[in-house]
């Protein structure tokens, strides 16, 4: 069974960072990548994120499912952008350079293609980092560090609890769906999407009911062992912040500053190589 939220335990410097550091860095990094369309900056971020992927020892096959999913999404997104506003790039860069003798509405322009390149780089700069966060953060350790940066422990704990029960729920879903199929509910690709959704809903009811039963048991189990007794709790998986944590956060903060500075220097969110032409 494929677990989407897969923590993959391998020794690497990125795994050794605390969950909170990784979370803060993820936020800062995404802010930096989101705020600008500066091609040079995005290219550097993209290259850096690939290097970090290498460092983290996460392999392509570990994340192939999510990666191919985002890739399909990226392609569709690009096609849609092109179809709906093929001249978007020309508006942004305030110039039009036709690449072919044909000059109709859908004619390819250098500006539009350059815009798509930026679009692609933005994905490249962010997606690997998100995957990296998911794959290298131990959920319990993440909960403990969320608590450390000020999130209430009951909230932080529910994050790790949810992750704890995902495999259970997946297994149950599988079992219930098999039993339902035996009773004649068609789940295979042979039937149309409406019927498949209907079938899925008949599985959801028993799934929800059995999960509700469990929630009562779990919350009792937790209370019986003193959860919620005090305002604070300690964490078995907690790690102290160390020098690399601080360094990483500072570097990511600098990235945000650079992104903002570039926006000011470029005079807009876009880096425009067509100005000189």
């Amino acid at each position, binding site marked *: 069974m494929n677990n989407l939220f897969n923590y993959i335990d391998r020794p690497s410097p990125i795994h050794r960072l605390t969950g909170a550091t990784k979370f803060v860095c993820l936020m800062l990094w995404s802010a930096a990548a989101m705020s600008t369309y500066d091609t040079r900056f995005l290219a550097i971020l993209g290259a850096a994120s690939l290097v970090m992927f290498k460092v983290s020892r996460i392999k392509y096959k570990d994340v192939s499912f999510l990666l191919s999913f985002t890739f399909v999404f990226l392609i569709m997104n690009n096609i849609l952008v092109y179809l709906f506003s093929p001249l978007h790039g020309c508006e942004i860069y305030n110039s039009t350079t036709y690449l072919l003798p044909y000059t109709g509405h859908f004619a390819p322009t250098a500006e539009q293609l350059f815009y798509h390149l930026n679009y692609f780089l933005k994905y490249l700069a962010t997606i690997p980092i998100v995957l990296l966060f998911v794959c290298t953060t131990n959920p319990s350790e993440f909960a403990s560090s969320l608590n450390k940066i000020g999130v209430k422990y009951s909230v932080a704990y529910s994050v790790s609890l949810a992750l704890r029960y995902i495999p259970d729920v997946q297994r149950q879903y599988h079992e219930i769906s098999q039993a339902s199929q035996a009773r004649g509910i068609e789940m295979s690709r042979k039937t149309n999407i409406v019927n498949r959704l209907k079938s899925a809903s008949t599985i959801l009811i028993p799934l929800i*009911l059995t999960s509700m039963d469990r929630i009562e048991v779990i919350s009792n189990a937790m209370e019986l062992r003193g959860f919620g007794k005090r305002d604070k709790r300690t964490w078995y998986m907690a790690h102290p912040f160390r020098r690399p944590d601080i360094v990483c956060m500072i570097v990511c903060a600098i990235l945000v500053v650079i992104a903002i500075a570039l926006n000011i220097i470029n005079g807009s969110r876009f880096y425009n190589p067509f100005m000189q032409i």
Partner: protein
Amino acid sequence: MEELLKFENFTFQYNAQTKPTLIDINLTVHKGEKILIAGPSGCGKSTLIHCINGLIPFSYKGENRGRLTIKGKDTNKMSLFEISKSVGTVLQDSDAQFVGMTVAEDIAFALENDCVGEPKLHDTVNEVAGLVNVDKLLDHAPTELSGGQKQRVSVAGVMVDDVELLLFDEPLANLDPATGKQAVELIDNVGKRTGAAVIIVEHRLEDVLYKDVDRIVLMYEGRIIRDCTPDELLSESALKEHGIREPLYITALKYSNVNITPDMKPGHIDTIRLSDSDMKKVFDFYESIEEPKERGTRDKLLEVSDITFAYKEGHSPVLKNINLCIDRGEMVAIVGTNGAGKSTFSKVICGFEPGYEGKITFAGEDFDSLSIKERAEHIGFVLQNPNQMISKVMIMDEVAMGLRLRGASEEEIATKTEQALKICGLWKFRNWPISALSFGQKKRVTIASILTLEPEMIILDEPTAGQDYRHYTEIMDFLKEINEKGVTVLMITHDMHLMLEYAERAVVFSDGRIIADDTCASIITNPDIVREANLKETSLYELAKDCKIEDGTGFVRRFIDYERTVVNVKEREA
């Protein structure tokens, strides 16, 4: 001895109920005592447990009269957390009790909540994990553990608190027989090592009595009706009268008209002292029953040849060269350890897991090319937990669902659901919502909804898990009945009693192979198979040895036959 826990004229009533669930309870538990609480479902055992661990009144609201004190302190004046410092509870479902992502975190849970810092946190976890033998599993996730290991972790999780009273709520449910035996040993060990008092709630009496307990408390309809030593209780007939199954050797002695008295030490098959005349009586009983006849040959229904199956390509196979033949009209038990391949085997037969090697034929027809849906018209599969199968609100709709999805006419649906509901004894409930039914009744709904498709065979996964003796008998007699009407029944079970009593034949799985396929009596008395498949010998066999009956297997076989033909028939008539 110091008093640890004391109920004085204690009565409790849930807010939602019109009658009290616990009536006039008087019970004292001393330091270091080990007590077994037994009683049929609905007798108030769970409520009693909840009163002790504080879930009543903190999670379940109600009104109480009388007094409950822990170490002299009135629990009404204590907080849940204060109580949990002296009382540790191991819940029935050790899967749900497992809160942490890994073994270590789960053991540490109570300490974390108590703000225990490093290095004490890690040290205590290591120490306690060593005590219950899970120290090599500290970084394992719950899904990677066996049922017995999970339970060890649960025990460790409450032991970190230095509690003085340990509560075990049906610790043997969901464990295979041998693991259950280890669990009883573990509980005994933990109690002795920590000096904590132990209260076990369990209806598998014989299994718990494998290790000594000081007292058995028998509950019935909210009251404590007996509170005495096992030796005393087993000499009486109170257990049977109140719906609790006696140990099998006791039943056999009673059938033989042996007069059991407390000074015979009947609490244990190893301690019981039988006089020569008692032995003679048992021997006479054995001689008086005829050796059951071999049944004649029947038509082959399901033939499985050379099935090998792995969940993922390249992984080691879960089923290895399985060959099995089930005849029409048989009632067969499939037994073996957790993870031996029993469930996988039934899933492969039902078509849930395609991609196996080998051949399955059903009533002479090729089964391999059929889909799940098509196979379901021949073989029905009933999951262990009925809640996993029920997706409609009303009983009628649920039972009719399979036919409706197959596009049957309304007329056909009406006649077939009526038939199925009547067989399952649910006809008078037909217009009820399913939520109003008990667990056992829900189980029948799921069986009824399978029966509408008129399968020739049904497979049940643990048909009686978590049921008390009365419901157990109800479900099993019902299965026997549909079996007599011609439906072939295949049961996956851990329950040795069930196998002995109801199955004609048992198929034993171990590590993906079938290691035995024989009558239940021969299997349960074969020490090699018992050991390899984590089964448990029956005390009947030992009784036979004690009474110098050479053919122990024959004794077991005759005892079962006597129960089936003489006793059950008499009881049914009564």
